[in-house]
């Protein structure tokens, strides 16, 4: 187990390198650079800017400089948020996005798993259909539409909640609901499907025929085993939520990390793009590692070779 984790972390270094290389290549292939404006800058200004940010050097040297900075723990500087380091920007935004993400994740699972489970245990009942319809409705509204609808209801009509920003718990409510909607629905569906699957397994029948009380069967056999696909999906989902959503942070004006990468791409802020992608790759890989470890904890049949 320990060896497994160490090996995966070593792999992680390679993954991060490959992601950086791909991103760096794409970033320079994409038309438009950081200084392309609607109103064109004078060529002298572009030269001076290139010089200032080291973009006058050959590409391999720029990439090398980036890597060397990363090794020293410096992700470079942002071009669009002038005078601020990418590391500083990410560290400042991360806790906010992570708080939102974790809350949304908890909400999604707390709603999704019981719903899915209940639907499966009473297949084709009213509960089942209700859970399908409920989760579908939530899953079928794009995040920005759900967000603005909540805003119209809670801010414009009722004046209960502020429309966005950061600082008070009230400002968390709407973005958390928006972030949780789709994963909750997804989680309910997956739980339902896998619970139905597990309920028909031999070991469940065996447990029942041994005369175990239904509650024990449900908790010990069905619940535990039906969580495997849920965990598979929940892992990346958590990673997704913690790294944030451009659309939700944009809509609710959350000063988090979720919109930085997209902002970076649209501004061709090479510093923010590279730092952002490395950060996302790192967060996602670590969370997936956690999921794999959790797998082993849940499903005793899986062993690390």
């Amino acid at each position, binding site marked *: 187990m320990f060896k497994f984790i160490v090996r995966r972390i070593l*792999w992680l270094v*390679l*993954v991060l390198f*490959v*992601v950086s290389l*791909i*991103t760096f290549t*794409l*970033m320079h*292939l*994409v*038309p438009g650079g950081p200084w392309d404006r609607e109103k064109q800058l004078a060529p002298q200004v572009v030269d001076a800017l290139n010089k200032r940010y080291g973009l006058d050097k050959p590409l391999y040297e720029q990439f090398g400089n980036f890597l060397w900075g990363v090794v020293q723990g410096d992700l470079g500087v942002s071009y669009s948020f002038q005078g601020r380091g990418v590391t500083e920007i990410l560290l400042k935004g991360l806790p906010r996005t992570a708080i939102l993400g974790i809350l949304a994740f908890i909400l999604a699972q707390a709603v999704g798993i019981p719903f899915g489970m209940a639907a499966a245990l009473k297949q084709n009942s009213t509960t089942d259909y209700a859970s*399908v*319809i409920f989760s*579908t*409705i939530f*899953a*079928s*509204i*794009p*995040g*920005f*539409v759900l967000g*603005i609808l909540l805003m*119209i209801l809670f801010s414009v009509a009722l004046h209960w909640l502020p429309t966005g920003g950061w600082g008070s718990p009230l400002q968390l409510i709407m973005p958390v609901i928006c972030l949780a909607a*789709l994963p909750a*629905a*997804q989680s309910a*569906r*997956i739980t*339902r*499907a*896998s619970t*139905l*699957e597990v309920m*028909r397994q031999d070991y469940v029948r065996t447990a029942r025929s041994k005369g175990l009380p239904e509650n024990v069967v449900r908790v010990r056999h069905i619940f535990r085993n039906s969580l*495997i*696909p849920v*965990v*598979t*999906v929940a892992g*990346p989902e958590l*990673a997704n939520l913690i790294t944030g959503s451009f*659309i939700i942070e944009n809509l609710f004006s959350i000063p988090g990390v979720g919109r930085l*990468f*997209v902002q970076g*791409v*649209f501004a061709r802020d090479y510093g923010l*793009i590279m730092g952002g*992608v490395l950060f*996302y*790759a790192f967060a*996602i*890989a670590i969370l*997936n590692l956690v999921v794999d470890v959790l*797998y082993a904890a849940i*499903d005793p*049949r*899986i062993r690390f*070779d």
Partner: protein
Amino acid sequence: MTVVTKIETVSARPHHTLWGDAFIRLRRNYLALAGAVFILLLALAAILAPLITPYGFADQNLDEIMESPSWKHPMGTDELGRDAFARLLYGARTSLSVGIFTQFIVIVIGLPIGAISGYAGGKTDNFIMRFVDVMYAFPDILLIILLRSVLGGSIYMLFLAIGLVAWVGVSRLVRGQVLSLKSRDFVSAARAMGGMGNYITWRHLLPNSLGPVIVSITFNIPRAIFAEAALSYIGIGVQPPTPSWGAMIRDGYNLIFAKPHLIIFPAIAIALLLLAFTFLGDGLRDALDPKLRR
């Protein structure tokens, strides 16, 4: 008692393939059937749109701008006086193809990779899964912008761009399923009977891991339609005046305070489509479950 009935059914049952069997059982599930019928009708309506509505999707009428729903325009008109109902019908063409085609790419890539990874295990699995890690962090927006600028604003690029990035979820799911199924009795049995690796994967592991995969795909079709809406929202959507539900939602979003119906109708359309796919997916899942064979 159950055991006895089951044995009888099994013995009396004519031999069907997994899929043939599934089809028969799917027909018995009315909700799934309703879902399938809705999707087919929608597809048909999209294809036959010119016969259903007298308006074209690009016909502007500047004297009928942003009108509320009426007999003449059942879903009202948009900012350029175009009939929203016509745009919804024609938009279904775009949205259905975005949803289905991206999932096609997702399955073609994600399913075999996940299955191979899960079945082979060891070095292969590790390598594939690290590749999947790379794909998770893949800067898809950059790829989409690049594809669009190199290959033009065609909708096929959008399919490709969304599909090429979205397969990782499915492949991880399949892998998880395969890992868990691998050690089960029927696989061991197949292996003991001399089944080869590929044969076991394709014949036993894959069909048996399909349940959650199908559920996830039915969810991913609308997700792809959303992805298209999100891309429209941030300004890299389909080429106008071709309508898509995503683009309609984006356009309607800008007018949500002025003319809410412009966003409500496409949103309802997406919700209904999603509901249809969900019922169909659930029906398929049940139908494909070998342990449910009757």
